């Protein structure tokens, strides 16, 4: 048992796929009138393409790829601000690797690094804190981004820095939360979604109750899912069964990792360090109320926005995206990635124009990498 291989068993997969085909049929969904299921999380988008699940499931079932890829939804203005901090004298900017190539208005972090800024990739915010210990004469900033899965790690690192009084360390906080954009999508009058596959790793922190509103207020099913192919298929089956039976519930397929109430230690650390922002900008989706967090005044000494005087409310904000980029339409499920005029031309994983092409969790990169283009053309 290693809790991965068991969830890739081909015999079981055949069984679940047959059941998915059966239930899709019972719902009466067809290629012309498909049932639309959104996988919220970029990790799920990646897994769907990596394992070709979209090719194995019946034509009456269509996946809509949700906004749950943190680097994909990071607005250009935040990259600009990160570059601005990184270019200050004495600063060491630290970041997860996948943020390096996200385009900003002026440049990406990788371009800033080529231009001489001291930008380093780290695996963990704890490594950034360690760097601050080793370089007391420098200002070490960690580019904190990610959903609820990652927010506790920066909260705990800030708490550690505070306990150690490590004052040459700070976090440029871009952490965001999953439920508000889902609500925004559900409020969109053009919304076509019939159900959701919920983000498993976010849920191991926040639990399953924050999704209650999806079932209760909008009458849509949601099943919190793991990341192995069988996890995903079983979750899709559970969503379809709810649709067939006319139920709208929050179910938990990933109970081996996700306790219904989440992780209390992580939640307490986040509540101690962070408070909601009135609103936060999402690339392609615009400003969404209470969808991001910022560092509380009590921890201002570790807040890069305070320390360097950049960020929300400090100067004009540019929200424009590059010309011809349809990231927003892809993200809301209005078009498939290859329908964007830039797809594979002006925009490739090597030279991304839009952020959905940057991370392997982005819908455009997944399409590009795993031949979604060829498949769609063949149809």
């Amino acid at each position, binding site marked *: 048992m*290693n809790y991965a291989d068991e969830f890739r*068993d081909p*015999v079981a997969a055949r069984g679940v796929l047959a059941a998915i085909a059966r239930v899709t049929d019972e719902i009466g969904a067809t290629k012309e009138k498909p049932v639309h299921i959104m996988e919220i999380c970029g990790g799920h988008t990646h897994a769907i393409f990596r394992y070709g699940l979209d090719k194995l499931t019946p034509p009456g079932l269509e996946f809509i790829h949700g906004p749950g890829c943190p680097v994909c939804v990071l607005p250009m203005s935040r990259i600009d601000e990160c570059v601005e901090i990184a270019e200050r004298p004495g600063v060491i900017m630290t970041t997860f690797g996948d943020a390096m190539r996200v385009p900003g208005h002026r440049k990406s972090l990788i371009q800033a690094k080529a231009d001489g800024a001291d930008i380093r990739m780290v*695996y*963990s915010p704890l490594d950034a804190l360690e760097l601050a210990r080793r370089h007391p004469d420098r200002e070490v900033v960690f580019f904190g981004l990610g959903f609820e899965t990652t927010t506790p790690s920066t909260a705990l690192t800030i708490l550690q820095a505070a306990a150690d009084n490590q004052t040459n360390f700070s976090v440029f906080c871009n952490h965001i939360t999953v439920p508000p954009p889902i609500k925004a999508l559900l409020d969109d009058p053009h919304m076509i979604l019939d159900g959701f596959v919920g983000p498993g790793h976010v849920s191991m922190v926040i639990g399953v109750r924050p999704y209650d509103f999806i079932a209760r207020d909008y009458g849509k099913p949601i099943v919190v899912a793991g990341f192995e192919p069988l996890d995903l298929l079983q979750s899709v089956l559970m969503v379809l069964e709810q649709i067939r039976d006319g139920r709208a519930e929050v179910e938990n397929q990933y*109970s081996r*990792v*996700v306790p219904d109430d989440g992780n209390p230690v992580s939640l307490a650390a986040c509540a101690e360090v962070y408070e909601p922002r009135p609103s936060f900008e999402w690339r392609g989706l615009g400003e969404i109320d209470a969808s991001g967090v910022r560092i509380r005044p009590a921890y201002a000494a570790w807040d890069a926005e305070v320390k360097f005087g950049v960020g929300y409310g400090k100067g004009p904000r540019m929200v424009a995206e590059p010309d011809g980029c349809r990231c927003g339409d892809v993200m809301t499920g209005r078009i498939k990635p290859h329908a964007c005029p830039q797809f594979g031309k002006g925009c490739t994983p090597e030279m991304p124009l839009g952020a959905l092409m940057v991370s392997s969790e982005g819908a455009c990169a997944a399409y590009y990498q795993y031949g979604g283009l060829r498949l769609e053309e063949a149809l």
Partner: protein
Amino acid sequence: MGVRRQVNVACILKDEPIEALIGTWSLIHVGFAMSRINEEEAALTLDVLRQLGEAQVEIEAMQASERMLAS
């Protein structure tokens, strides 16, 4: 194979000594152990999946048999 690395286990420790974690599986994310794998829940999920798989094998065998008899 694999990687050795120090991880922070604050999030998964209940009221117990750290040794209680030895031999357990956890989900690690950016240097932090975020969730302990619940082995009973894993077994339950796998049971459901196996049953679906076995049922399908049986259905396919029945269908093959029917086709054979019909031909």
